[in-house]
């Protein structure tokens, strides 16, 4: 289980444009590096990130091997109502890291 940090602003008012910040621990192994024995280290990157709000996709990104380890992804949304944000990171090993966070709109 990778560690994940999600930062959703607190004290949000209806209509505010807010910034959501995420960090996940991941090697983002490019597939171009070789191990000390000379063999290629297989590629293992997060290739897609998706964020939904109450089931509706609000942000998605495709990631590529040039993106560094422990990727930081930040994006903005307009806060219209309270609800649950769901974050998904998909990687080459078939793993999906799923996390949720509350958005409270006053």
């Amino acid at each position: 289980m990778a560690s994940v940090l999600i930062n959703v602003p607190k004290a949000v008012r209806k209509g505010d444009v807010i910034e959501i910040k995420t960090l996940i621990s991941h090697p983002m192994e490019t597939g171009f590096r070789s191990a000390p024995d000379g063999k290629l280290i297989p590629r293992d990157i997060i290739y897609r990130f998706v964020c939904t709000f109450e089931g509706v996709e609000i942000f998605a990104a495709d990631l590529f091997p040039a993106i560094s380890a422990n990727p930081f992804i930040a994006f903005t949304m307009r806060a219209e109502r309270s609800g649950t944000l769901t974050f998904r990171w998909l990687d080459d090993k078939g793993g999906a890291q799923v996390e949720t966070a509350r958005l409270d709109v006053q």
Partner: protein
Amino acid sequence: MRSLILALCLMSLPAWAQAPKTSSFDLMKPETQAMQRDDASNPAMLWIAEGRTLWSEKAGASRKACADCHGDVGSLRGVAVRYPAFKATQHKVITLDQQIQICRVQEQKADPWALESRPVLALSALIGLQSRGLALLPATPAEASTLAQGRALYEERRGQMNLSCAQCHDDNAGKSLGGAVIPQGHPTGYPLYRLEWQDLGSVERRLRNCMVGVRSEPYPYGSPEMVALEVFLRDRAAGLPLETPAIRP
């Protein structure tokens, strides 16, 4: 004549003795500084989160967590700024990471953790964070002989390039070396997240980079030479605030 004497006096002082002590933070690009200032964008915080889990996780034959003996990790505020520290029980100066290893084996009675392993770095960063903003402390009298050894190692020329630490970090601090500006070399942010490593690392990992940089054989992790250098660097940086876990390029 008087100004000539003054000029000669100034020349004989190491560069950093004239310049105020500064952290390498001041040399970083504004974007990189912003990354360190905002915990929500500092990747080292991933290790802090792991450290918190480890702090309260029961382990080993003792079935005790760090928290069972030490309470809230906040009680360790002020600890990181005085390490490496002389431990009477060990009859020598040890680093914070070595203290974590000792507690792991002797107190928790659990499998040892290697230096530079993920759990040691995570706990070391968490304990360091508690002292963020506190000034690094000078060496104590009990650490005097280790300090002297560290100073000698710092001033000794080494490697194929035949350079001492002092030649870069005292005599040429502030000048460029390739793409980087040579910092004064104060260990104010360790363990820290280095963008080049894409990883969290200890000050010993940094020192090994500098040693390899002058093509010398780097000292092993936890070796007496490393510990002595760290005591010297802490004493030399005394007064600067701890930034742990910092970001460096």
